């Protein structure tokens, strides 16, 4: 399909499509940093699937591919003390918060050196040292706990902010609605980010929702709410900036729906047989890394060579993480079976 014709078509079909421009306050260096982070996410995820096939990584693994702009645009604006609540599709969130991909890869390998000492795996990846509150295997269930960290900030009167992610699927969990209501009532410093990729495994969200604009739920609970083009890192960045400022200033929550499209299977081995994937062809033309790269070149923010170097650098880091996890890390010892069930080393058998 031809590039430009395809994008004209897409603009009609993808109601969230927004033209790109470079927002105020976003300098070149930061753009390069964001671009690099997106590549690190992409390369990481691309590497996991073959590792899963090779049985090095097991369990459920949900790639963040083509949603990189969302986590990157939002989370890179946070400080270390700010919190991020994640989903089952959490690798990208962790990377954006500044997590260590070696430890993440080791965790996926189930190794003792992994973030979760091999106990958690992909679905529970977390790094408490940087406020990454952890992914969750129960869709929607991590939202209320994440809002709990905003409750902490509110009680303590700090200016820490929490960003909590959930999908179009997770948005339907009742505790998400309950959490929105409390956040609005008490003006908690939290940003609800709905990563609306329009699918929950094999369920098209249009089949199970009456109002396609998910951000309107936020309005119903009294939360300033809006929608972004999930492929447009600049627009998301600008929207998130305002939301973070509001939250930090004690003005309460914001709901940002980032509309995108799931362009791969739900997890490693899902071939999406239940849907027509050809609709995604168009979307690949605006996938966030390509799109940001093109914008930066067009606007002379970076040269193609620079961008290529960034990609290559990301690849190297990911390869190193695999090497680390595979050869330098260890299986948890059976002696440690009862560790971590209780705090402070207490063992209750």
């Amino acid at each position, binding site marked *: 399909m031809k590039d430009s014709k395809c994008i004209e078509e897409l603009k009609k079909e993808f109601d969230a499509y927004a033209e790109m421009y470079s927002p105020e306050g976003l300098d070149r260096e930061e753009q390069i940093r964001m671009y690099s982070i997106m590549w690190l996410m992409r390369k990481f995820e691309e590497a996991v699937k073959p590792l899963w096939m090779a049985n090095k990584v*097991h*369990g*459920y693994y949900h790639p963040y591919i083509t949603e990189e702009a969302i986590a990157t645009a939002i989370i890179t604006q946070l400080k270390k003390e700010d919190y991020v609540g994640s989903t089952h599709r959490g690798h990208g969130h962790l990377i954006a918060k500044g997590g260590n991909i070696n430890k993440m890869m080791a*965790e996926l390998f*189930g*190794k003792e050196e992994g973030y*979760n000492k*091999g*106990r*958690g*795996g992909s*679905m*529970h990846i977390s790094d408490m040292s940087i406020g990454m509150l952890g992914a*969750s*295997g*129960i*869709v*929607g*269930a991590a939202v209320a706990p994440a809002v709990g960290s905003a409750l902490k900030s509110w009680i303590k009167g700090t200016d820490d902010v929490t960003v909590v992610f959930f999908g179009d*699927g*997770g948005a*339907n*969990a*009742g505790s998400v609605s309950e959490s929105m209501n409390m956040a609005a009532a008490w003006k908690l410093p939290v940003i609800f980010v709905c990563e609306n990729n329009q699918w*929950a*495994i*094999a*369920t098209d969200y249009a*089949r*199970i*929702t009456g109002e396609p604009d998910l951000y309107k739920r936020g309005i119903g609970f009294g939360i300033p709410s809006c929608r972004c083009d999930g492929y447009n890192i600049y627009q998301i960045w600008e929207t998130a900036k305002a939301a973070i400022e509001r939250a930090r200033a004690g003005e309460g929550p914001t709901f940002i729906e980032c509309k995108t499209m799931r362009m791969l299977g739900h997890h490693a081995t899902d071939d999406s047989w*239940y849907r027509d994937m050809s609709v995604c062809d168009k979307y690949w033309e605006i996938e966030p890394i390509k799109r940001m790269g093109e914008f930066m070149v067009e606007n002379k923010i970076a040269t193609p060579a620079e961008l290529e170097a960034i990609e290559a650098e990301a690849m190297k880091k990911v390869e190193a993480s695999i090497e680390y996890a595979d050869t330098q890390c260890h*299986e*948890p010892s*059976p002696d440690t*079976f*009862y560790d971590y*069930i209780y705090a402070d080393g207490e063992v*209750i*058998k």
Partner: protein
Amino acid sequence: MSIITLRESITQALREEMALDENVFIMGCDVGLRGNPFGITKGLMNEYGEKRVIDTPISEAAFTGLGVGAAIAGMRPLVEILYADWITLPMDNIVNTAAKTCYMFGGQANVPIVIRAPFGVGGGVAAQHSQNNENWFVHVPGLKVITPSTPYDMKGMLKSAIRDNGPVICFEHKRNYSMKGEVPDGEYLVPIGKAAIRKTGTDCTIVAYSYMTYVAEAAAIELEKEGISCEVIDLRSLLPLDYDTVMESIKKTSRVVVVTEAPLRGSIAGEIVGEIIDRGFDLLDAPPQRLGSKNSPVAYNEGLEAMCTPKKEDIIAAVRKTFE
């Protein structure tokens, strides 16, 4: 007769009951278009339409609640909770509405709902996809709880559950889905509340259910070689539980080992041992043995995961212990 997997036996039960009774319908995440993650409901939406095989949003609390209400209004819903671990989400409407409505309403309303929940440890899917919470429901008067482990039983008991006029929770072990077995071609039912003897024996009774029945059988085969003849009972139904069969067996063997895959503490194993003592303390030649999983969340790491659940060797050791 044909040989089918347990997975297929469920599909057959659903298909047949839907054909027989137009009040039967299915709801859950991805049960329609995708036919459930394990392929169990595949094809049914095409056969019965989107109103009888309903793809739900990720709203377990309310969609189970809708099922409960539809049952009260006279339907026969089959609600699927993708992993039993998340039965925590609709817990309230199961425990406080489904189980209690008939009673609280003085018999005015029945709640003929079936809740299907794949459970058990296996596959390296970590602590939120690996639980055995069945004893929670055994502890709730008003519910029935079944755990069929063979294709024959699954089909026949699920059909009984669908026709039961009260709420039934059916726990299906994920590791059993591919198990094969014979199933008659025609219609049949297996009643709820009767145990099955998987292997007869004279020296020790092993009481198990679901996946652990297979592990127990393997242990029994090995013990047979050493000259210890075990009787393996598959409970099939945890509530009601067929103590007649259990006690008959113990009369013969005077020894008993109770096995569950649930973390031992607070599990049904204690309940069963307590009842055995009430019903036949004097029959016992040795203290009854309980075996369950270690009291730990389930790890992602496959080595740790494997350490968690009772193994053939553990059952063998427990049986031997009854001879010490």
